[in-house]
């Protein structure tokens, strides 16, 4: 195959990659499974640049203007084929948001991002909906026990436990992309575990620490009174 055909294949690669990027960011919201929601404009921009660049390159070749200096390193074109791998992964595996496999099993694991205690307001009346990170932060809040005796509602997916009468309501926390995800878990007692990986809304109250706040990181417990199955939230990560 001539250099020109090779170059057209390469432009095709860019076009498909840009299309896949636009497809998960501009035309659907699949991208929230992989990165923070704030990334959307960046992804749309990058996808658009890739598509425009591929088209510009096609036009240049069609008009016979393409430069011929690619052969300076011949391994370049070959490695470019790899750009198809993420496209195939996106389309064929359609990777979902990280679930119970990534959240791991029993280990207490690394602590979540340190919460800022100053940010905690008084809990609103009724049964407030809390993010798992806030629940854990309040459980570890040295200033007081804002959770004590309060009914709260948590949203997450189900991670089973080997321990009896216990499962974890879990949410992954990401700061940039799914590669840096940490599992936020709260142990749920008092209700049977729903199906693994299903999304639920748990209503219940925190079980206070026996004695002092633990030194290392220990998963906080709650007694649940009610579990409702829900659809996966629009933003799967916290």
């Amino acid at each position, binding site marked *: 195959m*001539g250099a*020109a*055909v090779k*170059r*057209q294949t*390469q432009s095709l*690669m*860019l*076009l*498909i990659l840009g299309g896949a*990027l636009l497809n*998960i960011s501009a035309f659907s919201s699949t991208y929230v499974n*992989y990165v923070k929601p704030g990334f959307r404009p*960046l*992804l749309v921009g*990058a996808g658009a640049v*890739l598509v425009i*660049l591929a088209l*510009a*390159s096609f036009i*240049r*070749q069609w008009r016979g*203007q*393409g*430069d*011929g*200096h690619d052969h300076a390193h011949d391994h*370049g074109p*070959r*490695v*470019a084929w*790899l*750009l198809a*791998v*993420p*496209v195939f*992964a996106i*389309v*064929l*595996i*359609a*990777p979902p948001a*990280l*679930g119970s*496999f*990534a959240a*791991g099993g029993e280990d207490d*694991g*690394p*602590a979540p991002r340190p919460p*800022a205690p100053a940010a905690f307001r008084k809990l609103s009346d009724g049964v407030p909906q809390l993010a798992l990170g806030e629940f854990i932060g309040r459980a570890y809040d040295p200033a007081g026990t804002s959770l004590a005796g309060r009914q709260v509602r948590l949203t997450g997916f189900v991670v089973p436990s080997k321990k009896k009468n216990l499962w974890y309501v879990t949410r992954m926390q*990401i*700061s*940039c*992309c*799914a*590669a*840096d995800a*940490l599992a936020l878990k709260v142990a749920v007692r008092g209700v049977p575990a729903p199906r693994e990986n299903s999304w639920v809304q748990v209503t219940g109250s925190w079980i206070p620490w026996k004695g002092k706040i633990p030194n*290392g990181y220990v998963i906080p417990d709650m007694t649940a009174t009610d579990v409702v199955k829900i659809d996966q939230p629009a933003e799967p990560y916290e």
Partner: protein
Amino acid sequence: MTQGTPLDWPGAEDHLPPDSWGRGPARESWLPWSFVGLVALLVAGRFLLAPHLTAPALQTWATIFVAVCVQALPFLVFGVALSAAITAFVPASFWTRALPRQTYAAVPVAGVAGAVLPGCECASVPVASGLMARGVAPAAALAFLLASPAINPVVLVATAVAFPGDPAMVVARFGASLTVAVLAGWIWARFGRSEWLPVPRRTAAPGHGKWGAFVDAMCHDLLHTGGFLVIGGLTAATLNVVVPRSWLTSVAGIPVVSVLVLALLAVLLSICSEADAFVAASLTAFSPTAKLAFLVVGPMVDLKLIALQAGTFGRPFTWRFVPLTLTLAIGVSFVTGWVLL
């Protein structure tokens, strides 16, 4: 590197005939069909294969792999665009005026200049390569390459947010990263050989116009670095899924080993430098020095970056430069941690 040295490979531009020779219309006609074929393959696969590819380990692996690629691509596109703009629009004379003539003086200047590029490490590789192609001394471009992802404002703010009430960590990260970058640049200036780091590319071909050169350079770089980004993403995702996090906590208490383990973890995980502070902060069992090593090593040496560097600068360069940087980063982290934290 000046133009016309043997490293510019004179003649590489014309040892093959121009595109137009022997290019018949018949060869082009397969292209639309191959596009249709590929899309049809993907659509068919979506319905036939996707329902069966649901093993949790495979899905987790794919999510992390796609996440690494998707997250890095905008920065890569930005870096490649900047690099192409540098080659196409900024005259070479600008750099000789902007940077000190002496390489040893240019290295720290370039390192500090890294503070102004608000990107992660994926952007800095193509930019450094563009700088070299434009005649900036390789040692100075390398100092920029190492410093930029670690000490830019976005990363420093992220570090301050991740370590609330601990400004020493931000100072230590800035100081240690800049020191490593400058030392690595100086060592390369002193001992590096030009045949390890060929700068074969792109002295904007005359007669094509600046926009043409821009489009060509960007396509070429994107395909090239993008391919290597995929290699890095594949390895990082695999190790992310395979290496259990639980063995980490078991070594957290051992003084020197814990630092080395977190440095190794930074290499394996290949987390973007804008996010690594949050991960470091979550490793509560480890000493501040170990966390600092994680923050200093990560933006300079990781699997994704090694793949990108090997693709951009060649393997002879990479297998010398990566161990040098890693050793320096760990050593400087030890010293900084001992002094500051």
